[in-house]
């Protein structure tokens, strides 16, 4: 098994902690000594500001980021293990909010057209081969969600990719309620159209919210005696501890995602996919406070009746941004696009017109998805107090020739590129 081998290699490598007992926390980990990473460049990916520190040092303690700054003005406390990474760059671990590779593939129980009680958390397999690729590509947080076979596929879970057990991996459960606004669910059953699908979604969500609100009121002094686990997730949606993630694309579907879910029902939701002509809704989405996480298709081309680009190939995330949407990120829909190619999604976004002049392509891989998922207090940028999810790489992640050399999650070195390979070789 690769992970076991990898960990064995790490345990025996000088930079992986020397001869220490595996049970003894290593530098940077919870309970271990502090860790200082020195690098040529730190891309902190903060939402505001330049987000770049040259000749920098990052201090990690107890699995969290303690400080970062220029080397000349940042003192490394005594007792810290110092790792000089030379010309390498540091950036936050990347975040993919649309993946299906958290475990086994049984994530499309197409029992009913709405299956809000189903949870993919039961399918999580730590260190599965696909998630290992994510780790090795620097993707440290994923939203593992049900497929889009039905209008409501069930509940997703937010996971840290490189950790050993389900409990360690779990960042938030439920991570989201997955709603597929159209397209794929039309294949189900008797071939329904968009009118009926929107009816299904609206009915299920309204029922669920009514149930949840009634239950929350019951808690005021009354015993919680009625249980309907089909609607349990709506309590989390009402109290804001989770959100809706979507499969929504083409103009009229995205319109209804924003209009019904956010506008009418007041649920925290974001556009996921958002392809074809849906980018025309960017000003509306911005007004309604709805972000867009784009992929796996990263371009919009002519496809009647879905879009008419007048012959041009447009960048989907680029068009959202150009038309006024502030928060735009990237996904892979792995395994549709391999998870390890998340940064390539940003690269291709830029190739076709996404404005990266202020490094927003980097933010679209990190802080933007973190904010969208409501986990920016933990991940998404290199800022003091956040989880030490840090990747070490040889240059701009949007250039596919650059490889990931090391991946830290919560201060643990979970991946280190094999020695003896020349250049930035990932796999």
């Amino acid at each position, binding site marked *: 098994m*690769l992970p076991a081998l990898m960990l064995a290699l790490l345990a025996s490598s000088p930079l992986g902690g020397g001869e220490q007992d595996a049970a003894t926390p290593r530098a940077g980990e919870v309970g271990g000594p502090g860790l200082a990473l020195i690098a040529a460049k730190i891309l902190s990916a903060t939402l505001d500001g330049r987000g770049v520190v040259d000749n920098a040092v990052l201090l990690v303690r107890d699995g969290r980021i303690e400080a970062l700054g220029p080397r000349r003005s940042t003192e490394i406390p005594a007792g810290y293990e110092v790792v000089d990474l030379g010309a390498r760059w540091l950036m936050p671990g990347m975040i993919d909010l649309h993946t299906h590779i958290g475990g086994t593939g049984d994530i499309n129980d197409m029992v009913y057209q709405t299956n809000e009680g189903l949870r993919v958390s039961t399918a999580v397999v730590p260190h599965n*081969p696909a998630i290992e690729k994510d780790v090795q590509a620097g993707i440290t947080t994923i939203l593992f969600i049900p497929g889009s076979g039905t209008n409501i596929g069930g509940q997703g879970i937010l996971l840290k990719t490189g950790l050993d057990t389900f409990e360690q991996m779990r960042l938030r459960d439920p991570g989201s309620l997955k709603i597929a606004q159209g397209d794929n669910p039309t294949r189900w059953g008797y071939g329904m159209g968009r009118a009926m699908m929107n009816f299904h979604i609206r009915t299920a969500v309204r029922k669920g919210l009514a149930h949840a609100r009634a239950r929350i009121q019951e808690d005021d002094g009354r015993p919680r005696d009625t249980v309907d686990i089909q609607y349990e997730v709506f309590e989390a949606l009402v109290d804001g501890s989770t959100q809706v993630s979507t499969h929504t694309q083409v103009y009229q579907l995205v319109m209804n995602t924003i209009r019904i879910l956010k506008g009418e029902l007041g649920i925290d939701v974001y556009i996921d996919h958002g392809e074809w002509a849906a980018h025309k809704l960017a000003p509306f989405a911005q007004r309604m406070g709805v972000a867009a996480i784009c992929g796996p298709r990263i371009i919009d081309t002519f496809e009647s009746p879905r879009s008419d680009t007048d012959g041009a190939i447009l960048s989907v995330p680029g068009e959202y941004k150009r038309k006024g949407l502030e928060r735009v990120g990237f996904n892979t829909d792995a395994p549709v696009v391999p998870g390890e190619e998340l940064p390539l999604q940003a690269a291709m976004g830029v190739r076709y017109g996404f404005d990266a002049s202020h490094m927003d392509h980097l933010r679209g891989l990190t802080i933007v998805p973190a904010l969208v998922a409501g986990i920016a207090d933990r991940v998404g940028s290199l800022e003091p107090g956040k989880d030490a999810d840090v990747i070490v790489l040889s240059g701009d992640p949007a*250039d*596919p020739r650059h490889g990931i050399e090391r991946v830290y999650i919560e201060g643990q070195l979970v991946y280190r590129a094999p020695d003896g390979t*020349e250049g930035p070789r990932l796999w």
Partner: protein
Amino acid sequence: MVTRPQQRVAAAALAALVLAACRTTPEAGAAAAGSLGDLDEALRPLGAGERGCVVVGAKVFVLDQADTILAPGMVVVRDGRIAAVGPVRPTPEGFERLEFLSAWITPGLIDLHSHVQTGGWGDINDMVLPINAEFRVAPTVRPGNPEVARACAAGVTTLFGIPGSGTSMSGFGVLYKTKVDSTYEAAVFADPGGLKVAQDSNPQRGAGDFGASRAALAWILRDANDRARAALEQGRFELALENLERVHTKELPVLIHTAGSEGVANTARMWRRTYDTRSVLSHGCFDGWKARAFVAQTGIPVNNGPRTFDYGPSREGRMIGFTDEYVEAGAQLISLNTDAPVMPQEELALQGAMAARFGLSDYLALRALTIHPARAFGIDGRLGSLEAGKDADIAVFDGNPLDPRTRAELVLIDGQIEYDRLRDGQRF
């Protein structure tokens, strides 16, 4: 005449450039100085009706035997051909000066495995018989179709447009240039450009009554080749074998769709050992790289793509970038393809980037997109490098062409501007 403010350089800056110009030759002693041409001769006054231009950039990758890189450098074009490359000089009167201060200049990119001559999918697979050696794609070519126009805008200037791989021998392709507003006569470089053979996988799906196994596929190909050889030896005219005979006289090259370790070994053995042909092994995907040592022994050039890495279940979760594996084993003239529209034609350079991601050196990736395919196909007398005398097929990029965020600024084919980003806008 294209005018762009950033091309205008003050005399002082120009003088500085001239002073800073240097030629680097990584392989000392191997330089064939003559291949760069004589700059003085190239910049002599233009004769009546003669056209000339100079293309100036921060780096000029000549892709010659000596691996010359000029930084900065200039390419002098006269009447559609490269007259010389060298350090930056003032431009004589009459020459158009196309100057890009931060640009990387390379030869136009070449894709030996492409199906966009018809404008996209379709009209490339006449699956009449397992052997269709009498077919040519020439009648299906639409010069300058939108796929081709996008390729041009990505610096891809020459394509081998071929039939599909539905049958064992699907016919003869055409080598053509990605000129945008052009005619068949002006765009086509060679017709027939070479033969397309499919030795594995796709023809198994239904090539006549045979095609159910590799044994049958091998028999079908050997039978056709033997019939062509017999006709040649006997001086007998056979219309259906006319062009196949030219493969066996080595007049025409052959590109073979093959994959898997057994398919790759069969291809190298048949087309190099059984028949000594000017053959190029195309795809070579899946675990084909496992036959790399034998491939290297036969000397058959390898043309990888659209897959450039092996991600089979046998890899224990590892991904093997196989272009580098072939190179490490000593395979010759490695080149890359898109199999467009399987991969979009404009993403040829991305194939180089992905090969580099999995271990190939940047410079080798650049060779794999330019001089290697030209040499593999025997068209390097005119294409594949910026050496004097060759066709002026020149790509000007705003950075390293292997970075997908890089754009082509200007593309010349036969000395004519076929794409100018400021003039033509973004095509993709």
